[in-house]
């Protein structure tokens, strides 16, 4: 069976293959565990960014609570792994179900409110999650959960960082393919239609409720899977990881790369993670730089990197079309 049979879009197939190759080769090029660790965090952050991209970038539902989904995923996985001793596969399944459930809960307000009000609602949710996890006995309170078993498949444990890296990236590649297929189909169009004009969308037959909830479910599942991967990769989680400041990272990832593009989310995740992990020693300067970058993006780069490139390509295409003997534009739009 050709790989093309599973992936929608020719350009994306090439990009995914390229991604897979880079990922596959990375641990062979560098033996440095630190770089491989950054690679693992890139993978986890790609999932979080893709979730943000789906719900906020594509469907236009502002979700400032992604760190809450991250926390829910991490704690669910940690609790099930430590208290029930299950392997990763069943743990992941349960995490997905739990995440989806919370995705629906957070999605319900989006049926009634939007914009900054929805942002407030989602922050309220995520902060409540953090506070509950910080105070609950069963979550280990401020100490969190320790000695979480590592990632494994069919009983084979990941012994070192390189193996964890392949494991994480395999899941990431699958998740990229899923989002890509979904968004290239008419479902992606439904998301964009709702972002543009939910009234007009409902009038052409789109079930706005279902699509909005689906957007939040995708965001929560991707966030939850990221959390599960993190929990078993790091082996230890506590509430201090899942704070509001983390949300700024996720936001930066999607607006830097480009709200409307999943490869933008990937690019944003890579850039932000690399800078974040690499400049850990200078955390305040790094954060100030992130903040300045966010404001600069608002002022000068609203489409993000990928979005701006795509826009200029399209503009040039249109300009060519108007020249004598011009060709019709053939590049698809990515806003």
């Amino acid at each position: 069976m050709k790989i093309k049979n599973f992936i929608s879009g020719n350009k994306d197939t090439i990009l995914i293959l390229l991604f897979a190759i880079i990922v596959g080769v990375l641990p062979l090029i560098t033996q440095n565990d630190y770089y491989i660790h950054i690679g693992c965090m890139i993978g986890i952050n790609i999932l979080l960014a893709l979730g943000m991209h789906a719900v906020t970038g594509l469907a236009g539902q502002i979700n400032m609570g992604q760190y809450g989904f991250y926390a829910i995923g991490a704690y669910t996985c940690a609790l099930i792994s430590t208290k029930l001793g299950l392997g990763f596969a069943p743990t992941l399944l349960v995490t997905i179900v739990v995440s989806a459930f919370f995705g629906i809960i957070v999605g319900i307000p989006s049926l009634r409110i939007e914009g900054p009000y929805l942002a407030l609602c989602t922050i309220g949710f995520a902060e409540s999650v953090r506070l509950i996890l910080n105070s609950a006995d069963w979550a280990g309170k401020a100490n969190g959960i320790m000695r979480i078993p590592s990632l494994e498949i069919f009983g084979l444990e990941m012994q070192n960082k390189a193996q964890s890296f392949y494991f994480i990236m395999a899941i990431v590649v699958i998740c990229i393919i899923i989002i890509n297929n979904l968004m290239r189909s008419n479902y992606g169009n439904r998301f964009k239609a709702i972002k543009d004009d939910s009234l007009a969308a409902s009038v052409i037959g789109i079930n706005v409720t279902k699509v909005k909830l689906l957007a939040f479910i995708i965001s929560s599942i991707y966030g939850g899977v990221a959390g599960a991967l993190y929990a078993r990769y790091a082996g230890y989680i506590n509430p201090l990881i899942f704070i509001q400041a983390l949300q700024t990272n996720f936001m930066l990832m999607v607006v830097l790369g480009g709200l409307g593009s999943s490869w933008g989310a990937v690019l944003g995740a890579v850039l932000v993670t690399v800078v974040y992990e690499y400049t850990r020693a200078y955390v305040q300067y790094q954060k100030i730089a992130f903040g300045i970058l966010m404001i600069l993006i608002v002022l000068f780069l609203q489409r993000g990197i990928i979005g701006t490139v795509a826009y200029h390509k399209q503009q040039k295409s249109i300009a060519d079309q108007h020249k004598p003997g011009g060709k019709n534009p053939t590049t698809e739009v990515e806003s």
Partner: protein
Amino acid sequence: MIFDLIIIGLSVGALYGLLALSVSLIYASLDIIHFAQGEIFTMGAFFGWIFYSHNIPFIPSLLLAVICTSIIAVIIQRVIYKPILKMSSGFSVRGLTFIVAGFGMSIILQNVFWLLFGAVSKNYGADFGEMIDLGNMSMQPIYLIVLVVATFLMLLIHLLLKKTKIGLSMKAISYNKQISSLMGIDVDQVTSFSFGLAAAMSAVSGILSAQIIFVRFNMASVMLLKAFSAAVIGGLGNVYGSMVGGLLIGVIETVGGSVLGTEYKDVISFAIMILFLLFKPSGLFAFRTKQKA
């Protein structure tokens, strides 16, 4: 004893209310929800601490801190927020522009504070006198001081909005900027004034809060969300409503916290906010009637 819980609740609530009032003022005049207002609150607390630790008495320190904070806030508004508002296009997602800008500014300010002042909480060490006896319970004087100051400020604001030219201008631009401008109101100036006034209120709240919770670069993180809760409950944009919302949250939280345990008291406020956003987003005292499409 429930009575002193209520007094403490009202006092804490007044602090939320002042911050909520700032948020409402900004919403009313700029039409944005300012996610970095917590850092203005913190800025006030830090300025106050700087002056106080240089042996300037408390009240002058407070006044100086308020002035400094307001000046910096207005600079931020004119240099950064005004250009953003003037841009015709933002993100393809409506409403995201100021959320990102606000979060960005918040992160910048928080980390500037961290760099300048370190991570250790600062204590004013101010002494407001001995415990005050009210019947058969005693309470730290700061809580009563807060109530007095808050009442005074509310009166000030009330007089400002009703009796002064600038107050009326503020109300006018909150209804319709274009018409106000046509009627001779300098919308730019009034907007900056509103922002500065909001900063002043936040600074006072910050300085007084610092007497209870100490000064730290991230002291506002949960505080701001509660201020939003208060503003939503009272009616975003409605100055009086925001204070009422703040008082309500303060009391419910303090009383509820003694029942459920203090760790969960914050969750109560957020839950109430979410419920209001879902079922009565205009709050208890609606600010503007929104036009139906």
